């Protein structure tokens, strides 16, 4: 160290020494400005490389020789012109190769380029020293020499690497300082390693002439360096401005983007745009330098596409703690001549919300918010999968509102819809949190009860549902009374698949409805067989008319004033080819339900009229009209047509209706009856005494006849009440001008009784069972003959 200090302080001229350092600094800085230009040059990079090499070479060379001029060892010295100039050429060439190598790729090439530049500079120095002659013997101190060479290679290498990796002005200055330090270390440590032993007998050199040409050469080189430096400064300013403009443009473009944008390099974020900052609620500064993993919720790993190229979905963690689903599209990008990734970040929250909404709409009823058929089916499948594994039971309840259709038809759909919403609310109140309520359609509801203590839990639930739905509703100021019936199927005993469970719950519901409504029924296997028979019967009933499987029988009516058969009641019979006679009690309700009663009833009318037209007058024919027929719009025309086709005087036709036909749509029903009566047809009130037996019905319409139900006659003997009722109805009939017929008369005692009360007609086994058409004809003919 002492040696180094002595060398600098005592053997150098300070002014020239300072000049040497300045030249070196200018050369180093100019070199890296030009190197940056070479790095970013799109085309003809070699020109920039050549200029860079020229700047580095002349800088180092001038430094060396100005420093040599400053060196005054106290002995005359001389520089060999050949080696001096050769050393300049050497350093420029080697640096040229070095920079070309360093710019050709990352990693080892950068290091190798740096080392090569250092070698070139070192070689220049010692080539120069080789041309240095003075009167004396030059000796080298080994340690300092080694240090000089090592630093002369290492420091330029570091400088080149830094300049290439960190192209901003400040690191560039640092790189220039490193290069400066390297060149100075090389030179001055090398000079300190030099030991000069004076040679007393040596010839004197032409010292002055030697210094002159060297000074001129150095001045020329420095001039070149100065020019290069000025050009580099201008270039640097321009490049800087351009870079800033480009950056600004890129930034405003990025900030204008609706999507979030991330710029990253080797797993670290180098930039973000405003959208992304807004999305994650973080400032720009937070992003820069952050690892990409910092964007994710804790514990999640980076999708492969985020690091390389492609598309992926991921979740980002916002500053608020919200986890935001995002779509990432990554593209490689060349930015500042370095390969980076641009990642477009698309907020998927809206899409996810829309998807969830669509899924909800697809599985729910928009009116009530309950699961619709599809959604309820999914819930059932889930329950089946879950409970199928564990073997635990659950219950499926099918609910049907009892008077909903009537409400909907008479009060309008708006009221009906509002009512359904309130029904849904009450069902939600009736079930537990684990149960699922659905509305498969119309006024059908369903509950999936995930409770293993069956059948008790299902019974209690059904009762809660029925209780709540039986309470009156108030809808838009109107009090509405509906009610509900419930059918229950249990898993696994009543079915192990959805279709079977649903069908069996429906069968149980059907039973609940047919057994009085407002109640619940569990599925029983027997319901299934009955239902199957019913379904088969329905199919066969549809074809029975075409296959002429129906025929009529005729039951005589006895007029009590002359004890003569005054007419017959036509009764339908179905002779099934395989099952034999099927009871009307079995198929008539089915025909009513399916609407088949209309064509069948018409056939009965025509057939009965045709048969009666063949009878001698004034024998009458009585035909039953079902409630559905009374309400059907074509009934008056059908009756007229039947009489006309048969040529039967309408006065001989009696139509029997029950009170049931008058209960719904009463005004219209009475209108129909009046129109029928206007044809000349007579109208009888059938089965009077059962059901409502409303006197207002008798008051509202002038029935021709009241038929007293057979149930009163059966216990005439024992039951005083029955006798009183029969008597009262007969009196009532007389006072209203209506005939009375007593049905079901089987004994002579019964006949005597009703005769004594003043009854007009009787019907029953005592008078005659229903008989075939020819038997009826014979009976009438006998009467005529008598």
């Amino acid at each position: 160290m002492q040696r180094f200090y002595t060398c600098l302080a005592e053997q150098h001229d300070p002014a020239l020494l300072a000049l040497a350092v300045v030249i070196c600094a200018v050369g180093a800085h100019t070199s890296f400005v030009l190197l940056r230009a070479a790095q970013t040059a799109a085309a003809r990079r070699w020109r920039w490389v050549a200029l860079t090499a020229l700047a580095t070479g002349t800088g180092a060379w001038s430094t060396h020789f100005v420093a040599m001029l400053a060196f005054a060892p106290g002995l005359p010295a001389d520089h060999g012109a050949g080696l001096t100039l050769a050393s300049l050429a050497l350093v420029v060439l080697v640096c040229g190769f070095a920079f070309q190598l360093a710019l050709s790729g990352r990693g080892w090439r950068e290091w190798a380029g740096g080392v090569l530049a250092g070698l070139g500079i070192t070689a220049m120095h010692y080539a120069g020293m080789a041309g240095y002659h003075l009167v004396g013997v030059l000796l080298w101190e080994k340690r300092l020499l080694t240090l000089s060479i090592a630093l002369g290679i290492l420091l330029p290498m570091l400088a080149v690497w830094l300049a290439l990796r960190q192209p901003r002005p400040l690191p560039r200055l640092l790189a220039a300082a490193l290069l400066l330090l390297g060149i100075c270390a090389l030179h001055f440590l090398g000079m300190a390693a030099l030991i000069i032993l004076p040679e007393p007998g040596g010839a004197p050199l032409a010292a002055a002439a030697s210094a002159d040409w060297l000074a001129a050469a150095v001045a020329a080189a420095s001039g070149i360096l100065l020019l290069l430096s000025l050009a580099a400064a201008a270039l640097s300013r321009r490049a800087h401005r351009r870079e800033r403009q480009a950056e600004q443009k890129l930034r405003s473009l990025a900030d204008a983007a609706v999507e979030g944008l991330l710029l990253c390099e080797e797993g670290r974020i180098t930039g973000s745009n405003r959208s992304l900052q807004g999305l994650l609620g973080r400032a720009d500064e937070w992003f820069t330098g952050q690892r990409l993993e910092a964007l994710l919720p804790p514990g999640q790993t980076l999708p492969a596409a985020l690091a390389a190229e492609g598309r992926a979905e991921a979740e980002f963690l916002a500053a608020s703690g919200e986890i935001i689903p995002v779509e990432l599209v990554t593209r490689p990008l060349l930015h500042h001549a370095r390969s980076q990734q641009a990642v477009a970040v698309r907020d998927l929250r809206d899409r996810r919300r829309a998807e969830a909404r669509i899924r909800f709409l697809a599985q729910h009823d928009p009116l009530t918010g309950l699961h619709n058929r599809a959604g309820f089916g999914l819930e059932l499948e889930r329950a089946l999968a879950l409970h199928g594994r564990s073997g635990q039971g659950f219950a499926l309840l099918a609910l049907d509102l009892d008077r909903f259709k009537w409400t909907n038809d008479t009060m309008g759909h708006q009221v009906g819809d509002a009512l359904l919403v309130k029904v849904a609310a009450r069902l939600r109140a009736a079930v537990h949190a684990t149960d699922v309520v659905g509305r498969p359609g119309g006024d059908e509801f369903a509950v999936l009860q995930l409770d293993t203590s069956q059948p008790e839990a299902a019974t209690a639930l059904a009762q809660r549902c029925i209780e709540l739905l039986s309470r009156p509703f108030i809808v838009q100021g109107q009090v509405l009374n509906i009610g509900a019936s419930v059918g229950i199927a249990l898993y696994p005993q009543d079915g192990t698949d959805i279709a079977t469970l649903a069908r069996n719950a429906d069968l149980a519901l059907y039973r609940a409805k047919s057994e009085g409504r407002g109640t619940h029924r569990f599925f029983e296997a027997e319901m299934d067989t009955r239902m199957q028979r019913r379904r088969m019967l329905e199919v066969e009933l549809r074809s029975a008319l075409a296959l002429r499987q129906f025929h009529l029988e005729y039951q005589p009516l006895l007029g009590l004033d002359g004890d003569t058969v005054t007419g017959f009641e036509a009764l339908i019979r179905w002779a099934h080819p395989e099952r034999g006679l099927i009871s009307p009690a079995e198929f008539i309700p089915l025909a009513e339900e399916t609407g088949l009663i209309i064509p069948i009833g018409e056939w009965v009318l025509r057939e009965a009229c045709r048969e009666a037209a063949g009878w001698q007058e004034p024998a009458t024919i009585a035909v039953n009209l079902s409630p559905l027929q009374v309400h059907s719009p074509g009934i008056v025309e059908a009756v007229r047509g039947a009489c006309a086709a048969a040529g039967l005087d309408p006065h001989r036709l009696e139509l029997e209706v029950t009170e049931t036909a008058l209960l719904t749509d009463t005004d219209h029903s009475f209108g129909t009856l009046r129109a029928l009566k206007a044809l000349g047809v007579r109208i009888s009130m059938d089965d009077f005494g059962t059901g409502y037996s409303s006197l207002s019905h008798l008051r509202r319409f002038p029935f021709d006849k009241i038929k007293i139900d057979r149930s009163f006659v059966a216990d005439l003997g024992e039951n005083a009440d029955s006798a009183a009722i029969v008597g009262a109805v007969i009196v009532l009939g007389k006072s209203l001008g209506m005939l009375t017929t007593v049905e079901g008369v089987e004994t002579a005692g019964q006949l005597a009784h009703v005769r004594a009360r003043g009854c007009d007609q009787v019907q029953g086994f005592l008078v005659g069972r229903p008989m075939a058409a020819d038997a009826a004809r014979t009976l009438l003919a006998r009467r005529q003959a008598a």
Partner: protein
Amino acid sequence: MAEPLYRLLYRSKVAILGTTEEVRAEVAAILAGARRHNAAAGLTGALLHEGATFTQVLEGELPALEEAYDRISADLRHTEFELMQFALVPERGFGGEALAFLAPAELDAAGLAAPGDAADAANGVLRRMAAILGRQQAAPG
């Protein structure tokens, strides 16, 4: 033009399981909740809790009354629910409080359901509730 006023009258049986104390606490909670709702919805009325029977009259404008009724009628803490009257009324008969709580001192015979049709029965109940309310208000404290 004031909105039309409606009156709702129903009767039901308490279906709260528990000791007398627990039932009383639950009824108190129901009462407090109902008063809060009613005050917010502009409803007034009275609740008579007598043995196992609730009788409640509520008056107000239709939307609020219908909403309150939806809540009451979907409640499983009472049973044997019987809607006795729902009708337009010219003015409030129980306009004093959001929900007055009536505790009859004795069963006065005049109030027990007199023979007659539903409207008579409802009117009888209303008269009796009004009488109890009047007596309570007259009593000091």
